[in-house]
Each structure stands twice: as structure tokens, then as C-alpha cells.
């Protein structure tokens, strides 16, 4: 067990992957000489060479499509897209090709592709570098979606995605790259496809993922001081969703608060709320509550950006309202 950063955890996993399997290579904008927009691949070009750490031209659609082709051709590409906003340029390749090829070919072809990208806000990067569109990908059958909220998961998800035979989209929250945490190396990792109860509690379930996880944990800490015991459930896998763990928590606490940095309309939070209604309606003591981003393109100015995002204080306030309401 070592103490390290989210970024360093990812870099360690990439290094392991490149070292262990000659079919693995890294490809994306500025992943090589520059070291990665978020420095996740710093030093890897020097260690593994330009064949395996490939700087691409700025052509998201084509380098993601080339990743699909290389995966079809027997390689194990890890493609990095700088941010989820840029990934929209590659949406055609991911949705129309990566997600469909196995089914359209009746299982003749598989696409063992990993696409990593940064998501989320909090660094004053405004409306074309700050959005949380994880749900767009979680909507699509044929791909799997992971979102890490801890240093351990940031590391593990790279390797787990690589070990999976299907295309996996791995979201890293850009606000978390400098976050410190514990990292344990070795083969014994929790299945990435199961949600994790990060903090046990009895009064309400706070269901969240990715960049909102540290906020939810901080809120749970603050609530504890006021005598409210919040259980924090980290989704980890956004597709498929681990209904079993989510519903078990809600059945135990009888209240659900969903924290999702995506916009509320047409969101993952809406999907979660529906699943809870379908699976645990009679266990609920009150309505499901949500804390999501304001319905606005994320603004630049700090006070506006802060206001637009889920905040610890908002989570605390909503949790208290929920618990105060007696079913």
C-alpha cells in the first residue's frame, strides 16, 4: 500500500499494461512527447518508444476509429481523448462502430478497445472543456462504462478495461488528477462492475460516482456531526449499473439522494431514480432527491462555476431535508 495521486495511479497502470502485454499501445493527442494533457503518460514515450506511445494528429474520429480497427486486427489499444467534450467528434466511431460491430457481425468480431477520457468541471475551463456526458455513453448497448472516484479505481480501471473483451469507456474526473489516496498493487482487485459502499450508514443512501464521490464523502462526514448517518454508494460502473448493490442500500436506509455532475434532464440520475422506483418503491420513506449540475453550459467565472456544480453544502442541505421528511 502506497500513498500516491490519481494521476500517478493511472500512469502506474499504463506502465504495467505496456510492460505486460506487447499488444498494448497508447494512442492519442499529446500522449507522447507532451506527456499527456493531464500528464498521465509522462515518461512512457521514453520507456516504451514511439511505436507504443503514439502521438496522433488532431483527429478524434479517426484515431478512435483506428483504435477500433487495431483492436479488430489483434492489438490492445488504449486510446486517450483529452476530454469528454472532444469525444463528441468521435461519437460516430464509438456509437456506430465500436458498440455495434460484435452484434452486427453476429459475434464474428470483437472490439477489445479501451478509451480513456477526462470528464467534469471545477477547473474554470468553461463550456467546451467541463461537461459531464458520461450518461451519453452509458445509454448505449455494446459498450461498458467505468468512472473512477478513487486513486485505487483510477489505477485498476485501466487494467480491468484492458482485460475485458468489449469496448470500455473509462472516465477520469479532471478535478481528481491531483487527489491523493492509497494504492495497493497486485492482482486482488474488486470487480469494477460492482458498486461499492464507501461509507456505511442507516439514515439515507447517497448514490454517486466519479468526481462527486469525494464531495459525497465530505458531506457524509458533515452530516455525521449532526447525527445523520449517510451511506455513500459509489457506482463505479455506469454501464452496466449494479442494481443489486444500489437497491440493497436503499432497502436498508429507505431514502435515496442521487448526486450526479451531469445535468438533471435526461440524466443518469433520472435512470437511477427510475430503477429505485421499479425495484424498491415500497421500501422508500419519501421521494428520491437529486443534486445535479445547474442547467447551464458550465461558465468560466469561479463563483458561477461553483454555483453550477454539486457542492458539499448542497448535498448536506438536501440530505437533511430528506431525513427531516418523515414518511
Amino acid at each position, binding site marked *: 500500500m502506497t500513498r500516491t495521486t490519481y494521476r500517478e495511479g493511472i500512469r502506474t497502470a499504463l506502465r504495467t499494461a505496456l510492460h505486460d502485454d506487447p499488444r498494448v499501445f497508447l494512442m492519442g493527442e499529446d500522449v507522447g512527447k507532451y506527456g499527456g494533457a493531464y500528464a498521465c503518460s509522462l515518461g512512457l514515450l521514453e520507456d516504451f518508444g514511439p511505436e507504443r506511445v503514439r502521438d496522433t494528429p488532431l*483527429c478524434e474520429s479517426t484515431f478512435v476509429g*483506428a483504435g477500433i*480497427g487495431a483492436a479488430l*486486427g*489483434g492489438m490492445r489499444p488504449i486510446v486517450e481523448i483529452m476530454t469528454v467534450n472532444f469525444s463528441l467528434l468521435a461519437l460516430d466511431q464509438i456509437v456506430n*462502430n465500436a458498440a455495434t460491430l460484435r452484434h452486427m457481425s*453476429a*459475434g464474428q468480431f470483437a472490439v*477489445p478497445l479501451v478509451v480513456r477520457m477526462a470528464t467534469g468541471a471545477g477547473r474554470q475551463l468553461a463550456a467546451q472543456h467541463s461537461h459531464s456526458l458520461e450518461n451519453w455513453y452509458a445509454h448505449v448497448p455494446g459498450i461498458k462504462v467505468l468512472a473512477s472516484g478513487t486513486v485505487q479505481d483510477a489505477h485498476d480501471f485501466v487494467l480491468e478495461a484492458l482485460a475485458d473483451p468489449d469496448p470500455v469507456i473509462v472516465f477520469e474526473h479532471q478535478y481528481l488528477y491531483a487527489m491523493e489516496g492509497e494504492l495497493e498493487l497486485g492482482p486482488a482487485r474488486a470487480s469494477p462492475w460492482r458498486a461499492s459502499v464507501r461509507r456505511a450508514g442507516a439514515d439515507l443512501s447517497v448514490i454517486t460516482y466519479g468526481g462527486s464521490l469525494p464531495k459525497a464523502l465530505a458531506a457524509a462526514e458533515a452530516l455525521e456531526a449532526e447525527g445523520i448517518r449517510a451511506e455513500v454508494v459509489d457506482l463505479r460502473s455506469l454501464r452496466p449499473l449494479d442494481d443489486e448493490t444500489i437497491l440493497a442500500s436503499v432497502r436498508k436506509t429507505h431514502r435515496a439522494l442521487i448526486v450526479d455532475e451531469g445535468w438533471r434532464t435526461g440524466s443518469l440520475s433520472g435512470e437511477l431514480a427510475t430503477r429505485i422506483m421499479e425495484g424498491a418503491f415500497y421500501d422508500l420513506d419519501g421521494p428520491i432527491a437529486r443534486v445535479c449540475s445547474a442547467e447551464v453550459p458550465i461558465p468560466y467565472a469561479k463563483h458561477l462555476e461553483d454555483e453550477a456544480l454539486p457542492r458539499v453544502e448542497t448535498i448536506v442541505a438536501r440530505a437533511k431535508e430528506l431525513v427531516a421528511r418523515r414518511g
Partner: protein
Amino acid sequence: MTTDRAHSLKQLRRMLLVRRFEEKCAEVYQQQKIRGFLHLYIGEEAVAVGALAALRDDDAVVTTYREHGHALVRGISPDAVMAEMYGRATGCARGRGGSMHLFGAAQRFFGGYAIVGGGLPIAVGLALAEQMQATKRLVACFFGDGATEEGEYHESLNLASLWRLPVLFLCENNFYAMGTALARHAAVPDLCAIPRAHGIVSESVDGMDVVAVERAARAAADAIRETGKPRFLELQTYRFRAHSMYDADRYRDKAEIAEWKKRDPIELFVARLKAASVATDEDVAAIEREVSGEVERAALAADAAPLEPISDLERDVLAKVVP
């Protein structure tokens, strides 16, 4: 090449198989046995037949949604292709893909792509895999003139050239992007100009002449294997039918269609073989009988083939269901 009788007859047979197969498809489409989009290749056969003859069995092929001919020539059986069109369990994709999405792993046929330009990055990636695995295999990538204005076209040419990837870009220029004529969709109608600007050796070929297509494709394939670098061929051709079965073909001049039909690639090749005394009327008739029988049997088999069970609807969405 016309002097090689066996090869010539094989090429003629392939063109006739594609022609008769698609005529049958159009016929059964009218009987509603095939539904959805059906894009016929009739008139363009010399392109697939000529180009694919230049490939080795282990080269990869990436095509478009007008790919019945490519699939057949590559060796996916008429039975499997026809059954796919009928949406049957015996189809080459068990009814998942239909006319636009034919696949054959054994033939290294990586599929028909129906988002125009969408197959090009896939071909580039397949070629990258070949390069990284140090094979001498290449990737043949077919697309139409309509694809040449898509962003992915320009991106793919650049990447293939920059990374020296073994891609044979085969532009089937039938002069229409669905209903929009080349002069109305391309600012520079010389389709070799853009690949050349990306540093790719490019050549324009008469796509109605199966011998010329094969000759050019062989030269390009040899060059790719020798240098590792991509090549581009523009194959000028024409589709004799409408874009799809839904298309009323209002945008083309009847005289223009008639003019191109005078250069029917099959008729041209037959005339040439006869003039060179490589084939006789009897040879041609024998091939016709054989091919027609094969197509009829494929249609009968497809009609009688079982449907995929409903219980398998969600099969093959993922390779591994989790958790």
C-alpha cells in the same frame, strides 16, 4: 491477362455472379422477401472483381453499404449472403446486419459500413495492427466519391500517409453522392488531387474495365507491400440502378445512363475475350447457367431457412456479460 484463360473466365464468372445475384435480390425485394435498404452494385462489378483479384487471402477488406459484390467475390457464399438479406439464421450475420452489414471473419471481410466515410478509420487501424505485428498484409478499403468530403476521409488519408500504413484506398467513383452529382459536391473533381496532397501515390483508372482495374490494383498492392506506404486508386464507374430501392432516380439524365450502359463492364469483357479468342459464346452460356443455378438455389435456401430464435435477440451485444 486476357490471355490467361482460366483466370479470365473466373473473373467473368465473378462479375456474372454479382450481376445475377443482385438482379435476383431486386426481384425478391419486389416480393417483399427482402426489406430495408437495398443498394445495388449493378454496373460497378468490374471494380470489386478487378480489385479483389489483386489481394491475398489474408489481406483485410473494409467496404461500404453497397457491398454484396465485394462479399461474394471475397468468398462469402451466395447462400450466406442471400440468407442475410432475407434476415435468416443462416445468414452471414444471422440476420443482425442485413444488406448493408455483411461480415466474414474467415474471409477477413471486416464489414459493410453504412455511415459514409466511417469505414476508413477502421481500415487505417487494421493497417496499423498489420504494421505493428510486422505482417506483409494490407487492407483494402472501398468507399464512394461521396465519402471524399467527409472529415474522416481527409483525416484517414493523413494518418495513413503520416504513419506509412499499408492501406489500399479504393475510391469507387460512380459520380454521385446518393443524388448529388460530383460536380455539385466536390470543389476539386479530380479525386486524386487530395490524396496526392497528403503524399499518397494516386492513380485514376477506368472502373468499367476489369482488366485495367486488376492491373492497377496489383501494381498498387505490390508497391504497398514493398514500401509499406498507402496507395490510392480512383475507379471511375457508374451504377446502372438507382441509389436504393426507394430512389426514383430523378437527378440523373436518361441519356447519361444510356451512355454509360454502352460500357457495361460485363459486355465489354465478354466482347474482349471473344475478340481475343479466349472464350466462346458457349463458355459464356455455360458460366451463365452455372451462376444462375447458384443464385436460384441461394434464394430457395434462404426462403426455406429458419429465423433466428427470438430468445437470442440480445445475444452478441457483449462478449462478456458482467458483473
